[in-house]
């Protein structure tokens, strides 16, 4: 009895959580009129592609450009984030008592507590002062700094056996050689986890992208979606189609790497 009830509750919750995906996917292929007549129907009457043709252009922006921007900005900021966090966390965990590093760590923590949406306001001013407004560089650099990356690396480097490094030092290896030939190869699984999580998180980023952009030329998919959704007399079917395009790449990546993602996000939160 308990068993049946337990499964019934868990299954009902799961269906409720997954329903928006099914409804989004089905609505992307159903005409607006069809959705109005039968809002709950999940299998399309016929596969209507008008929604997708309608979003090939979103204002001045082509869908392909938005997709390309998403891939470029997410890919570049992920690569940079992994490199910067790995090097920074490694240095700090090798010399945790250095005054400059302790200061740096506190400064970083303070930044991460600052309400993100409100940080973007002064970041706009900083990017403006640096002359990076409207370009890709400002967006990519800003997205290359995040809490999960740093904490996951720091945690891994803290657990490194000291003997390995000592042995290499006695053998006369330089610090660069120790890092690149010994430590980083050992850190491969962490690097992969951090890269996947960063990609997922940065793909979803929209506010910094919107604020640092001066035209829609640098908009990513979520920004384009937000813009389309905010238009008067919005095209419902097109909005659902763009939601599908925005969601599918990350949903697929997550399903492939779910174990690593869940484990990594838990560790990143718990140990930070």
């Amino acid at each position, binding site marked *: 009895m308990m068993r049946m009830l337990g499964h019934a509750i868990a299954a009902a919750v799961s269906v409720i959580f997954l329903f928006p995906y099914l*409804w989004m996917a089905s609505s992307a292929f159903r005409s607006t009129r069809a959705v109005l007549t039968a809002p709950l129907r999940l299998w399309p009457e016929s596969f209507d592609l008008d929604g997708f043709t309608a979003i090939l252009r979103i204002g001045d922006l082509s869908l392909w450009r938005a997709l390309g921007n998403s891939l470029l900005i997410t890919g570049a900021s992920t690569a940079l984030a992994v490199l910067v966090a790995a090097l920074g966390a490694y240095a700090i965990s090798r010399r945790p008592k250095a005054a400059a590093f302790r200061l*740096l760590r506190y400064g970083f923590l303070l930044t991460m507590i600052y309400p993100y949406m409100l940080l973007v306001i*002064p970041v706009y001013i900083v990017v403006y002062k640096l002359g990076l407004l409207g370009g890709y560089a400002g967006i990519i650099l800003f997205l290359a700094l995040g809490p999960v990356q740093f904490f996951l690396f720091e945690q891994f480097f803290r657990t490194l056996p000291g003997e390995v490094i000592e042995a290499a030092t006695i053998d006369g290896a330089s610090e660069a050689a120790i890092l690149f030939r010994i430590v980083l190869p050992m850190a491969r699984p962490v690097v992969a986890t951090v890269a996947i999580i960063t990609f997922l998180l940065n793909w979803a980023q929209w506010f910094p992208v919107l604020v640092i952009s001066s035209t829609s030329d640098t908009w990513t998919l979520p920004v384009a979606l937000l813009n389309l959704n905010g238009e008067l007399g919005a095209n419902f079917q097109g909005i659902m189609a763009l939601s599908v395009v925005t969601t599918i790449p990350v949903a697929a990546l997550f399903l492939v790497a779910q174990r690593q993602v869940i484990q990594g996000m838990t560790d990143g939160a718990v140990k930070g």
Partner: protein
Amino acid sequence: MRAMGGRWRRESVFYLFALPFAALTIVFGLWPIALSIQVSFTGSATALRAVPSYVGWANYATVLADPLFLASLWRTLLYAGLSVLANLGFALGFALLLNTAFIGRMRGAYKLAVFLPVVTPDVAGYVVWRWLYDQSFGAVNAALKLLGLPAFGGLAAPATAMLAVLLAELWHHAGFYMVIFLANLAVVDRALEEAADIDGARAWQKLWFVVLPQLRPAIVINLVYALIQFLKTFTVVITMTKGGPNGATNFLSYYAYQFFDEARYGEATAMATVLFAIVLLIAGTVYALGERGRT
């Protein structure tokens, strides 16, 4: 002398490694925060000039005397409180359910369903929820009607808009809190539960006296994260309601953003500083209480 030079060279490598990280932290963290505080003391019209004019605490006085700001502040605190309770309550309940023996092989599937929204772009999720709540398109009211339940006002009615936003945010965030609880539950001592069983403890007694105390670390972490999260709620508002209807979902982040959008940088950054102080105070207090209770 040569030995010392070699040692310094060896040490300096670490500063080189940390340099990019330090540069990003300063340029996109500490400098903007300092700038934000500085701008909050300047007149908006001159904020972006090389030599801004300073107005002392005038922006703070304006902000704190603004009834709409104070209303937004209370609304934000209420919303954060309710969201924390709803999210952690749901996440804990669902984690406990998934942790029972009889869930068995389906555990992974249920967990995946609830966690998927966490990695779904929030804009996409909230856009879909906005239309799910829609009075004519929406599946929510169609489903309620099918079940013979009264219609839900959703985002259109001031009385229900906050609840509608809260539920959409719960959908997006609760999976994260759930996996934190699950990770903690995995290291809970089963022997203690068995001992309680032998002593004839009821299910709720076991939960309250045996399991919950052991979940303290997860509860503290989730409380801190959820408080920070819901005190600065923003994306859901800009996507679904734009603060409406009638200001019912105009929380602090969005209220400050509207000032920023109108180039009223002085007031906007003053609000940001106030919100930062509140977040720091509340999250810090909760964290300190949690740490103290540990020993």
